[in-house]
């Protein structure tokens, strides 16, 4: 059957190139098959049973195959688009998830700060609020080694007045988390300053970042 080869050709073209080219190949194939592969060769005008069989069966089979492949191709295209939607949604979900994790971290830190304040309320020297944006930049991990940015405000604690004026100057300008050795006025001798071990902790709360300096006891 001469139409088979052209039917296969049209199906392959449909699979790789789409409907328009496949239809073109089918129509051209019909002409070529009739002209070159159906005896008597080289005539269009001579029509007999073999021509009729070709003209009926070849387009019928080919069109059915092409339409089925076209439907599958459309479904495939649709599925690819839906996969893209799923991917976009997954990425959105991850970004949301990140926000939730951040909020949760801030929430936990707020609790830790509150517990810390309740536990060490006697030994406070000062609480310093960091500028929110600068603090976020520092917490993003790029600049942890650098000095912390300038303070937005400093709230004095119960022991703030006992601090040596030079230390006050130094701390308001540059305070970093960790251990410090500061001069505090001793309670017995009002004029005397004594070196005391202090520790400073950092809290990343939802209301901003805070550095809390207290004596170690």
């Amino acid at each position: 059957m001469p139409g088979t080869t052209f039917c296969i050709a049209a199906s392959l073209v449909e699979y790789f190139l789409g409907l328009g080219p496949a239809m073109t190949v089918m129509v051209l194939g019909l002409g070529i098959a009739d002209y070159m592969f159906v005896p008597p060769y080289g005539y269009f005008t001579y029509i007999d049973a073999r021509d009729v069989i070709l003209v009926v069966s070849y387009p019928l089979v080919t069109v059915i195959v092409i339409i089925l492949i076209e439907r599958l191709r459309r479904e495939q295209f649709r599925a690819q688009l839906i996969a893209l939607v799923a991917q976009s949604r997954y990425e959105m979900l991850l970004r949301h998830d990140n926000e939730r994790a951040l909020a949760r971290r801030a929430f936990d830190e707020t609790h830790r700060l509150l517990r810390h304040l309740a536990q060490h309320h006697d030994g406070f020297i000062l609480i310093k609020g960091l500028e929110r944006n600068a603090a976020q930049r520092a917490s993003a991990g790029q600049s942890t080694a650098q000095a912390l940015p300038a303070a937005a405000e400093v709230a004095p604690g119960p022991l703030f007045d006992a601090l040596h004026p030079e230390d006050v100057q130094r701390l308001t300008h540059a305070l970093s988390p960790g251990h410090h050795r500061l001069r505090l006025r001793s309670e017995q001798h009002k004029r005397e300053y004594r070196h005391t071990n202090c520790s400073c902790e950092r809290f990343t709360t939802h209301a901003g970042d805070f550095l809390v300096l207290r004596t170690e006891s």
Partner: protein
Amino acid sequence: MATVDMERPAVDPLAAQSARFFSEGDGHAVLMLHGLSSSPLELRYLARYLQGEGFTVCAPVIEGYSAGLGELPMEQWVENAVREFDALAARYERVSICGLSIGGALALRLIRERPAAQSLVLLSLTLAYDGWAIPWYRFLLDWAYFTPLRHRYRYREAEPFGVRNEALRKKIARAMQRSDFSEVGPSTISLPALHQALRLSRAARKDVAAIENDTLVIHAIDDETSSPRNPRHVIDRIGSNFLRTLWLDDSYHMITSDNEREIVARETVLFLRESEAARGAHDSPGQPVVSKALARRLRQLAAVGRKNT
């Protein structure tokens, strides 16, 4: 299905309401370009959201391009848009460009004129009218421009008006019957405007690879006006390092008014802020990545990006 309307309606008073939208915010200004022969009204939700997030928002009315302001060749549209951009760039540190539909094509042309822009947001980008609701014989309209029909026929918008939300669609249908205008655009578009839009999108297709600004592309897969081939054309060719693509499946063409407008607004804001952070802006750092899943995904994407380049 779209039909062609013989009458030439009068300029609508509602169009006057849809005037220029401007709101002062921080140093990041967003220039919002609406669709063809439409008005800043269709960007209202997104503009208000951006305003609420602290951006400076400017949705200008562009002479010759917006509804009811005469017809000018597309070179004039681009020139007017560039002027609006320069006015913002003179006052604000960063200016981003956001375009909806044909406004996206205008944004692509504009960003080639002004490559210093912060970022580019393409919503339902339209480079060709080839969505599923566009009839196959639509190309005749492009030819009709060259016939005496040019000033008589107007292309009439029809269901579903680019909106999937049925309640909103009914509302728009009523508004369009009553007058010439609705919140998702005009009810009719003139042939010269369509012809200029065709020229604009041809110009916008060229040299997409030269664009290196951060880019966000949002497109609905069921868009009835512009098929997903339009954004694909840009995604496959654009030269930017930071490209984010979002595909929606519960909207049609007017993604700023449809079911997923909240997602569009939210993701646009997130993208603009991330773009700021990526460019090392000092006063607005990005959010740190805490989620391990997100970090993994970002690494994956970065690996894909390296392979492609």
